C-alpha cells in the first residue's frame, strides 16, 4: 500500500459502522421459518385430491369389512343345521334315516 492509498484508507475509516438491531437473529429465524415449505404426509402427496383420498378410504373399508365378515362367520356342518327338527316329525325321521 503506497502513501496515497494509505492516506485514502485512513480517510475512509471515518465512515462509521452501524450496529445490528437487537432482534436481528430473531428476525432471521422468523424469516427462515416463514420460508420453510410446509411438510405434508407422504400420503397427501400421493393422493393429491381429497376425492381420491375419500374414495380410497371407502374402498379400503369395504375390503376390510367384507374380509372380516367372511373369515369370522362360524362354519356349521350341514347336519347340525337341521338339529332343531324333532325326531317325532316326518322331517326328523327322514333326517334320522340319513345318518
Amino acid at each position, binding site marked *: 500500500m503506497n502513501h*496515497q*492509498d494509505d*492516506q*485514502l*484508507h485512513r*480517510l*475512509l*475509516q*471515518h*465512515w*462509521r*459502522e*452501524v*450496529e*445490528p*438491531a437487537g432482534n*436481528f*437473529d430473531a*428476525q*432471521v*429465524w422468523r*424469516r*427462515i421459518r416463514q*420460508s420453510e415449505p410446509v411438510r405434508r404426509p407422504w400420503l397427501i402427496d400421493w393422493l393429491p385430491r381429497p376425492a381420491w383420498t375419500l374414495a380410497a378410504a371407502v374402498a379400503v373399508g369395504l375390503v376390510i369389512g367384507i374380509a372380516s365378515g367372511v373369515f369370522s362367520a362360524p362354519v356349521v356342518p350341514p347336519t347340525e343345521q337341521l338339529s332343531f327338527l324333532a325326531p317325532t316329525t316326518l322331517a326328523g325321521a327322514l333326517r334320522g334315516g340319513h345318518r
Partner: protein
Amino acid sequence: MADAQDPALVARTLAGDDAAFDELLARYRKPVLNFAYRLLGDATEAEDVAQDAFVRAYRHLADYHPRRQFSTWLFAIARHAAIDRLRYRQRHPTAPLAAAPEPAASPRYDDLGEHIAAAIAGLPEDQRTAIVLAEYHGLSHAEIAGVMDCTEKSVESRLYRARAALREKLRGFL
C-alpha cells in the same frame, strides 16, 4: 476473517443443530450488515438485506463447499441480495436520488462520513463492492475475487479505478 471452525458449524447446522447457525449469525451478522450498508448507503435497507442474506445462506447451506472460506461464500450471497435490492430500487424509484455533496473548501469534520458515503455510492457497483471489501473488511485480492467471482487481475483493476475516483471526489479531505 476466515475461521477454521466455520465448516464444522455448517456441518452441525446441516445435521439439525440450530445453535450452530446461531454461532454463525453471531460471528457474521455485523460484517454482513455493514457490507450491505456500505453497498446500499441505507441502514434500514441494509438490515433487511443482511437478514435476507442469512436466510438465503441457511436455505443453500448444503451447497457450501468446506474448502471455500465461509466468509467469502456469505459475502457473495450478501452481494447478490444487495444487487437485487439495487435493481428493485431502479424499478421502483420512490424519491429522486440526492446528489452527492461536493466537499467544501474547509470541510466540517462531522460531515465527513456523509461525504465518504456519497463518494462510494457514486462508484459503479463492481468498484464499490471491491473497495468496501478491501478497505472495510480487509479482504485480500484473492478473497475479493472469490466473492465477486472474477480474477484477481480484475479486482486489482477495479480497486485502482475506485481509489482514483475516490481520491478525486474526496480531494478536499485528503
